[in-house]
């Protein structure tokens, strides 16, 4: 098998996913083209060398629909011969895109490919694309469909994470992200976004509140309590997990991932590509894996996906220097650390989506960029990115600096 290397990784800052967000005015195709152009400029890339662009989008409809990857390639002015494909594995879409690009290289079918993702949640809101899973009665009954927030609360209830546990994790995320921003740890991968007139729109992750305290969070009301109670979802969750007496709703906006806009792209190539590009690779993609898990509790996939990826790599948890575990909800990270016995000091060392936001289709690729920067900064070698995924999946990718 051919080795797949990461030559570079870039991302936009994350803008608040609302109309007041700094990136709201930017259509998603422009965000996507922006990160492609960032790659081109930083690596002085002859885009004709790239075989394919794989982009993750979770709500691929409206202006994010119709194969935005290929359209972004064209919009960025890349060589016409570069193809593009949009993929959707819910929250893992961005990492899935990276893995697929890597897989093309590993399989010897591409010399170089781009993996990335984009999501303008302010312009194309989450769940804009409908789908059979929640709505089709046969499917919803069969899978005990509940919204992710209820699943996250179910994890907390079943495995005994309290609101205080979750809030502690959230405050930690805010503090670490604030510190990383202040010290410029994100600067290497971050491409400021400008408008048509050349005016800067955003050059930092907009959502953060580094001064957040436990007391601040204590005042927030649970996000999924009313929905769980009044729309039947708690009962559905209990029917699937009857050993649980009731769902304790511990998640709220302060300990769940934020809604943001953003894009990211990772340039991947084989060993020979270094010569054509005239640059050295930054890391090797060691292994990756996806895992399916029970869909009602839904968000327990990171641990089994990680185990699979590590097994393929012939590594153990202890061999990984740093982890990026997407902070979709606090309980997801808490559960992951418990199952695999991962020390907190190695996890999300610069904060996570609770502080920075989770631009669905882009997040996985963004985390690759963040992880690689931090491994380089600390002089460490191995890292792992993992995300929980809707409908009961998990994804993980192991990288190693070269």
């Amino acid at each position: 098998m051919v080795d797949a290397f990461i030559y570079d990784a870039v991302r936009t800052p994350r803008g608040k996913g609302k109309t007041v967000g700094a990136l709201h005015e930017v259509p998603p195709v422009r965000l996507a083209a922006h990160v492609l152009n960032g790659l081109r400029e930083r690596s002085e890339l002859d885009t004709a060398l790239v075989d394919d662009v794989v982009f993750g989008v979770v709500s691929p409809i409206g202006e994010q629909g119709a194969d935005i990857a290929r359209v972004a390639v064209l919009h960025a002015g890349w060589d016409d011969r570069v193809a593009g494909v949009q993929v959707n594995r819910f929250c893992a879409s961005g990492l899935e895109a990276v893995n697929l690009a890597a897989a093309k290289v590993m399989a010897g079918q591409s010399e170089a490919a781009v993996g990335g993702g984009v999501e303008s949640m302010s312009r194309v809101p989450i769940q804009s694309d409908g789908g059979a899973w929640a709505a089709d009665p046969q499917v919803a009954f069969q899978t005990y469909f509940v919204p992710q927030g209820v699943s996250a609360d179910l994890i907390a209830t079943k495995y005994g994470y309290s609101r205080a546990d979750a809030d502690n994790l959230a405050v930690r995320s805010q503090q670490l992200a604030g510190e990383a921003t202040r010290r410029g740890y994100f600067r290497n991968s971050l491409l400021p976004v400008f408008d048509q007139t050349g005016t800067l729109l955003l050059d930092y992750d907009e959502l953060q509140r580094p001064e957040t305290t436990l007391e601040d969070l204590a005042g927030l009301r649970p996000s999924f309590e009313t929905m769980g109670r009044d729309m039947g979802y708690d009962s559905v969750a209990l029917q699937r997990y009857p050993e649980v007496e009731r769902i304790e709703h511990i998640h709220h906006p302060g300990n769940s991932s934020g809604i943001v806009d953003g894009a990211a792209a990772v340039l991947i190539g084989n060993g020979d590509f270094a010569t054509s590009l005239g640059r050295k690779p930054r890391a090797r993609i060691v292994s990756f894996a996806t895992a399916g898990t029970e869909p009602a509790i839904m968000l327990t996939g990171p641990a089994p996906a990680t185990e699979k990826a590590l097994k393929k790599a012939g590594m153990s948890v202890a061999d990984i220097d740093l982890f990026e575990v997407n902070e979709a909800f606090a309980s997801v990270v808490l559960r992951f650390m418990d199952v695999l016995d991962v020390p907190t000091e190695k996890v999300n060392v610069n904060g996570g989506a609770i502080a920075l936001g989770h631009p669905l289709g882009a997040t996985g690729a963004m985390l690759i960029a963040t992880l690689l920067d931090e491994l380089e900064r600390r002089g460490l070698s191995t890292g792992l990115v993992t995300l929980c995924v809707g409908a009961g999946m998990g994804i993980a990718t192991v990288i190693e600096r070269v």
Partner: protein
Amino acid sequence: MIEYQVGQDGVAVIVWNMRDHPTNILCDESEQAFADAVERALGDDRVIGIVITSAKKEFMAGADLDRFLGMTEPADLQGISEKCHRMFRRLETGGKPVVAALNGSAFGGGYELALSCHHRIAADLSDLRLGLTEVTLGLLPGGGGTQRLSRLIGFQAALPLLLEGRRVDVTTALKLGMIDEVVLKEQLLEAAKSWIASSPEPSNPWDRKGFVPPGGFPDEPRNTFAFAAANALTHEKTHGNYPAPVAILSCVYEGGSSPSLDVGLRAEAKYFAGLGGGAVAQNLIRTSFFAINRARKIRNRPKEVAPAQLHKVGILGAGMMGSGIAYETAQAGFHTPLLDTRQELADQGRHYSAALLEKQVHQGRLDPDQAGQILQRIQPTTDFSELAGSDLVIEAVYENRAVKEDVIQRAAAQIADDKVFASNTSTLPISGLARYYKKPDRFIGLHFFSPVEKMRLVEVIRGEQTSDECLAHALDYVKAIRKIPIVVNDRRGFYTSRVFSTYTEEGMALLREGVNPALIENAGKMCGMPVGPLQVSDEVSLELMYKVRKQEQVDEGARFRPSIGFEVLRHMVEDLGRLGRKAEKGFYDYAGGRRLWSGLRETYPLADAQPDVEEIKQRLLTIQAIETARCLQENVITSATDADVGSLLGWGFPAWTGGTLSYIDTIGVRAFNDFSRKCADRFGERYAPPDWLLEKEKRGERIHKR
């Protein structure tokens, strides 16, 4: 059966008038006659439009249910639905404007017929109701109802009607868009004809180009959230035990998302095919419809006895039960002395009715004058002589033999020998109490359930000496107050309390086995019981349950064998002082919201291996079915149908099962006995099937005929 008339105005009036039936229904003959009439109108060039109405009080009651009982072939059921679709489709697309002139209520197939017309006018009658009620019988509207209603008023408005089988009055129907006009009954035909005279488009909106239902098609992304919630709420309510609501949701989602009505109808017929023959639909039709209706009409009343002349019904004891019984009795028009030891207690009992009546007046459901009249019939008193002239006296005093003896004897002095005395006891043997009465053959048990005004069942307990006439007159009273009776013989716990107690006992048995209490409670709810066994025990009161068993211990002496939960009750009550809901300390804690008591884990440590929830569900239903079978064996109850009805209405045994004995048929007698025998080996003899049931198994018989 179907009358047909064309007037000078060129309007064909098709009148449903099934003389051999109490109401108009869709059956093979009526469908054929109706289809012929439609063809006649469509084929007649003079006819410019069609009005469909009925000559009976109701427009149409729906489909002939006898047709579905025992029909299990999906292909046959699909055929029935498709035939109906063709008939209605022909009417709808025949090219002439069609009006439904709803002179009375229309349910199921009746309202589906109206839906396939181009215009619906209802008579302004306060008792006129419209609805697609099939779901209550485990069916779905198979005559296009899922498709046309969701297209007509939008799926969001249609789903509650379809999923709950709601019957709505004309005001609501008009507001929802289920009908287009409401007119005085006398003007119905005229209004229908004038609509036809306005030369309307002879088609329905869904057959026109570019049609979009109100709120959009169900599968549009904007509707995902609403549909997901409808799914979850249905899942919450049915716990997966009722296939019909899911099938209805799917008809609306899959079929309703097609721009083609015909495609939608096809989906509906296929889902209908899968439902009708299913055990749940058969159970609901057999018990919830036929059996309860028969019981309501007191079909097994001794026929040779002349009807009771009831004018005055005295109630002894103005507590919770007595007050409720007085309310129902006064409602039915009887003069109702309500007696207690102190005047203020009796007054309080009357106030119970006053509050209930006031609430109804406030909600606009009852005329204030009527409410006043009802209340006036209740006469609170402390004087036994007020009972004089009563046709029936019911005692609902404290559940204590000495207290009962006293009031029975004091009342007896006021009651004529040929009248009836009834006791509302739920625990004391009737034949024993009858001895305190001067005429034991005129003594009977009338066991009401709490809250009386909501619970429809009355368990009628026949003592050893109770005469046929006494029984017949008691049943006449039950019918008069519009309750539903079952007749049982006099054994400890009678039928309902005895069987229901096995549910709570089994919850305690599971607790002793080390099963996770949350799992026990969820299993109870998931199999369809209204509340988990531990919660309901708390509500009944652990202290009371313990007392009843201790009384039994005293009564039975050496023969007493402690029930499986006896030790749990003793421990909870005596050692731990956890008396139940009222004390705010039982299996649950109640301060700051109901939660399982954390100390349960130490008292009954969890076993290492926890059973599957399916096994617990099955145990909780099986133990009740076994006990019912034993009641039948011991002649406590004499009819399997009464057993079923009593279980549904008495303690909320899940309707999907058809009742405690229908449940055995649902599982299959052999499979049921196999499971029971396995449980008997593992958990105790209480699961051993009685001989009667073994005999059924040997003969390969069902309990109920198909």
